[in-house]
């Protein structure tokens, strides 16, 4: 039988999800399978770039994908996504208003916020407690040992926040100032290199460093086992990375995908999700249901007005190629020093 449409038709019973590791409570999946009789397949990726490469190459059939916010625009432009059907997502009302209509996807046409983390400063209480936010790292003193995240947008973004600028700026003078600041910073004796979340966490647990730039969720997961490691949001403001739920244009089972998204937006499910991942929930209705441990961490939920007054910036896609080249050049220089 010939089909004119290039979109494969699904059986309505299998949901294929492409997601980060340890980012979905297996109990939620089991409950959804019980309710719907569907089978859920969870495949994992380790970077937005690898995920994009695989999808753009047409390598696999998925219904639902969990990209970071700054990749959503790229995916829309590449024609990978289908617009969401709002009528099928009544639980969208649970999402906090500050996370709706975001700059990376005006009107939430293609994406729904899933989980997020602000970028904070982590420390080991038994060694040192930071007082002044980013100034502890970028200030003139060179007394503390520290690591920075191995991510260009986070590192340049932090320097920009310390200087009082937006983490998404394309202003050449502001970027030049950030570059000079970062040059001085990585020349400090206290600078212990770039690292990812788990590496920074382990160095803090082992008391090898005083401070580390880290995604709040990546540190919190260790705080319960060892209360000595803590994380704060720098008072100068910081960046926020939001992961989102999107439905692929080639999704064989878009109805099931919408149903799963709506389930994830439920208040109880949303709370269970954050209790599992230690990442923050954009689901306002879920917040009262969070574990007491998470509720007690101020760094998990930044003050609501921080987004409005520009202290907190989503990491957005850069406005043009020239800005992209500037960021690339700063990063290459820092890494090859």
């Amino acid at each position, binding site marked *: 039988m010939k*089909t004119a449409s290039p979109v494969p038709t699904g059986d309505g019973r299998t949901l294929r999800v492409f997601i980060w590791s340890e980012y979905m409570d297996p109990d939620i999946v089991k409950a959804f399978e019980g309710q719907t009789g569907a089978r859920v397949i969870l495949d994992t990726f380790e970077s937005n770039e690898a995920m994009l490469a695989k999808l753009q190459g047409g390598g696999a059939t998925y219904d639902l994908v969990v990209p970071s916010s700054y990749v959503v625009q790229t995916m829309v432009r590449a024609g990978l996504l289908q617009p969401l059907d709002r009528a099928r997502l009544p639980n969208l009302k649970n999402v906090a208003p500050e996370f709706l209509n975001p700059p990376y996807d005006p009107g939430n046409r293609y994406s729904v916020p899933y989980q997020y983390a602000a970028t904070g400063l982590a420390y080991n209480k038994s060694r040192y407690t930071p007082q002044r936010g980013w100034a502890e790292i970028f200030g003139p003193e060179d007394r503390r040992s520290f690591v920075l995240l191995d991510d260009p947008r986070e590192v340049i973004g932090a320097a920009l926040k310390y200087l009082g600028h937006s983490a998404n700026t394309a202003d050449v003078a502001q970027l030049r100032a950030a570059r000079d600041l970062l040059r001085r910073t990585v020349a400090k004796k206290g600078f212990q290199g770039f690292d990812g979340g788990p590496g920074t966490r382990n160095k803090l647990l082992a008391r090898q460093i005083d401070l580390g730039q880290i995604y709040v969720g990546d540190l919190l997961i260790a705080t319960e086992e060892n209360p000595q490691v803590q994380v704060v949001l720098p008072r100068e403001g910081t960046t926020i990375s939001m992961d989102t739920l999107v439905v692929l244009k080639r999704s064989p089972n878009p109805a099931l995908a919408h149903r799963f998204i709506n389930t994830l937006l439920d208040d109880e499910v949303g709370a269970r999700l954050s209790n599992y991942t230690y990442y923050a929930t954009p689901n306002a209705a879920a917040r009262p249901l969070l574990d007491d441990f998470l509720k007690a961490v101020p760094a998990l939920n930044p003050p609501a007005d921080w987004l409005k007054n520009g202290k907190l910036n989503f990491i957005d896609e850069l406005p043009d190629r020239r800005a992209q080249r500037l960021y690339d050049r700063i990063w290459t220089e820092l890494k090859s020093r």
Partner: protein
Amino acid sequence: MTRTHPLLAAWAWLVYAFLYLPILVLIVFSFNESRFGAEWTGFTTKWYGVLLDRADVRAALGHTLQVALLSTLVSTVLGTLTGLGLWRYTSRARAALSTLLVLPIVIPDVVMGVMLLMFYAAVRAGLERAGWTFDNGFWTVLLAHVTFQISYVALTVRSRLSGYGPELEEAARDLGASAWQSFWRVVLPLAWPGVLAGALLAFTLSLDDFVVTYFTSGSGFQTLPVLIYTNVKRGVTPDINALSTLLILVTVVAVLVANALLRPRRKG
């Protein structure tokens, strides 16, 4: 016998320590009570239990072994024949074929993975126009593994035979052996250690491969290396250490078995 200079011996030990200490640390930490690898908080075997409870790990293990065993079988047969052909025939085509065989070895994995991904996408688009659909999965991964394994097998078989000339086969024919008999009783026994070594190499390559497998597998078909690699994003959990320990064990056993098989049998 010449005696090894003590400095040289010390150097050798240092090199061994450099190679094996990380593996030892990994094995030790798979028995660590703590969820985070930084501190030793007590001995436990619970992570092995956690590991066995994970359905995704069991499925990935099954996929890995299926692909590794079948792709090794196919590539060993095809690679051996290719290696024999390269040894036996001299022509201009041989030089071209040799170059072609080295390509999959020198091409970076990422390029190979993306190349195959695009190839499969093109094939799929063509098939869909004809009304057929298929998903990347077992067969696409198997084919991808075979493509890089053949080169390794062919090259080990050819280098094993490089010391012998084609006269051996001619001599067998002169003594009355049929082409079939000379292949089975003269050429293949000579090539056999090369065939085994190539097969073992192919097997471990398939077992270890991440990049090519990541790009050529479809949804719902992950192998162990893909599972492990994509799991380290938020930090290696101790059950992954346990899994790696088990994988090392399997590899060591495979190498020991191969060594025993390859040991030259001395007569008299």
